[in-house]
């Protein structure tokens, strides 16, 4: 005997509600982390002062205004954006590759962005008309995007499928790392230092010029991701089943790859390489909420933003008054959360 539709419906509704609550919980945690991020800093400025500076900037003195608007806010907002972008990219990537190890790092997209940045820093190469401050950003973006197109071209060449895509991606990682190695070999000591600093990933590059750009990018792309949630869930069940549901798998993969590359390129261009978020963000989301992409995509966005925001808090707190590059901290805080979740899942 099969359970009646009423029972199934009830179960579904219960699960649905549980997932909504989990999403809301993640959102609340992210907001709290953001508030902590803008509330703490090496100066004596307290939370009330921060709020006053936010809501009536004219009423506080210049130091407070600058601390809140030029230091704390841009770092905190950038942390949310970068975490959200990388984690969303990672979630889509794991699905289209059908590989739990996939992340923008695994496929050479970050490596390509690094090489682009190295070209700008070491030999000052960029496309004509782009100069000064924007060279690194534009190069990182173009190379990340170019790498994705190359990846797509290679894998469609012989219909290699997801396994082929992963292997080509790994090949690209090594290729671009080698190119970057050559740049480092050629670099002057000063340029090398600059590049190393860039590649460690740091929120100190955030400002009100680049935040709207990344926000715009994310705001345009995320709806397309979410709109593809059904198809991605179908793909998660296997390529055959997805096809039988009428999903154009090849097209889905291609469009998804474009979104992934834009998100990764955008985030990397502005803050440098930040590892682990793209891998661990989606895993945390899926461990909490399951594989239904209507929920796991927004959950990935939130979990990525949350981890990155916590990392930002910690990077300021490790040595008060100094900044530890946030790229170092993301792994330090992401790994324990990740391991705890895996172990917890096992027990159940």
């Amino acid at each position, binding site marked *: 005997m099969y359970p009646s539709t009423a029972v199934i419906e009830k179960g579904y509704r219960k699960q649905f509600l549980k997932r909504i609550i989990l999403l809301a919980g993640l959102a609340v945690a992210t907001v709290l982390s953001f508030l902590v991020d803008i509330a703490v800093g*090496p100066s004596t400025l307290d939370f009330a002062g921060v709020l006053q500076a936010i809501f009536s900037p004219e009423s506080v003195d210049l130091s407070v205004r600058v601390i809140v608007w*030029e230091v704390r806010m841009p770092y905190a907002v950038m942390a949310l954006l970068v975490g959200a972008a990388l984690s969303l990219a990672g979630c889509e990537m794991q699905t289209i590759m059908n590989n739990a190890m996939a992340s923008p790092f695994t496929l050479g997209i970050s490596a390509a962005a690094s090489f682009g940045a190295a070209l700008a*820093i070491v030999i*000052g190469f960029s496309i004509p008309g782009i100069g000064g401050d924007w060279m690194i950003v534009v190069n990182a973006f173009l190379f990340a995007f170019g790498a994705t197109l190359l990846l797509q071209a290679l894998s469609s060449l012989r219909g290699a499928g997801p396994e082929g895509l992963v292997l080509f991606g790994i090949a690209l990682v090594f290729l671009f790392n080698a190119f970057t190695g050559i740049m*480092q070999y050629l670099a002057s000591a000063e*340029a090398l230092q600059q590049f190393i600093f*860039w590649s460690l990933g*740091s929120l100190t590059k955030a400002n009100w010029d680049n935040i709207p750009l990344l926000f715009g990018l994310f705001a345009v792309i995320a709806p397309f991701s979410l709109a593809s949630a059904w198809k991605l869930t179908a793909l998660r069940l296997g390529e055959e089943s997805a096809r039988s549901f009428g999903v154009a798998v090849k097209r889905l993969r291609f469009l998804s790859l474009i979104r992934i590359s834009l998100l990764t390129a955008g985030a990397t261009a502005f803050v440098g390489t930040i590892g682990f978020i793209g891998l661990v963000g989606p895993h945390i989301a899926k461990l909490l909420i399951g594989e239904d992409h209507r929920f796991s995509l927004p959950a990935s966005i939130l979990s990525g933003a949350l981890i990155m925001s916590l990392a930002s808090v910690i990077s300021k707190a490790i040595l008060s008054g*100094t900044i530890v590059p946030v790229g170092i901290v993301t792994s330090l805080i992401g790994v324990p959360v990740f391991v705890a979740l895996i172990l917890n899942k096992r027990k159940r």
Partner: protein
Amino acid sequence: MRTIAKISPLLLCVFFAMRLYGQPITVTDVVGREVTIPQPAKRVILGEGRQLITLSLLVPDPVAITAGWTGDFAKSGGLLYDDYRKHFPGLDDIPLIGTSGKETVSTEQIISLNPDLAIFGAGSHGPDAKSADIIRQLEAAGIPIVFIDFRLHPFKNTVPSMELLGKVLGREARAKAFVEFYNRRMNHIRGTLAKQPDLKRPKVYMEMIRGTAPPGSPGKGNLGEYIEFVGGNNIGTILPGEVGTLNMEYVIGEQPDVYVATGIAKPGEAGMVIGQNVYTFQTQESLAKLAARPVVSPLNAIKENKVYAMWHLFYDSPLNIAAVEALAKWTHPELFGKLKPHGVLKEINERFLAVPLKGVYFAELKP
């Protein structure tokens, strides 16, 4: 017996000639190694290419005695490097032993160049006192190494390094003249500060501007030591290492009295434009841009226009005396207002340097 009588005057001549010219030179370098070379070095390896500037304080044609070097001077030297090339066309023919970092250095290349001395920095971008493998291989090949240092402990090691170079290059008189010049100027600053028992130490915020990357600040070592030496209070001492990034919020909270930017950018490059053949307006433009960033706007130093810039490579050079005078002047104008850092460079140009330093090496932001 007769043969001996015949050749003995000859032997005597050879003996005295050897005493005069062939006396082996024994020195103790800055890391405490005792090194003996048979005669003044004529083919030297520079572990850091930029130390060619140091050699040119002592030797009229430093390029002629440089048998090999790393490529860092070409990359970091800006327009100064171009002037060296103009002055010494042979510069382009000096073989490279590596590009810039110590990992790029080929010991085989060094050995094949058949040098009679390698000059390394005790702590440097090139091979240094920690490069155990390179040291062992070169020693096994019979190539003596001396370590000099202007970077790890500039105030302790600059004088011994110059004396050491004077000896191994056979330019003792010249080195002595430089050391006297250097000590006289340093002692003036030391002495003046020693006479101020309750000296107020103004807070100094220094940024090392590197292209478009967020700037680093000196911690306890090197340029941080300069600031403390001239009676300033380096707000970067909270950093764990020699260089790091300060949280701008901390900087604003500290309210530094003096802001100093260092850089090596050429005109047209991103960063702090300063150095050889740079025009005053270019440095001013670059410095004004740094001072106009919203994030530094609340600093007293910016509000009161105590905004300064200097060429970065003084940090690893005996020319550090000019940087010390500039920092002293900026930090304690009431004590050192009369010092003229560019004047120091002028005197060094006239008395020592093979290729004069021209352009802007120090700047005060014009209001």
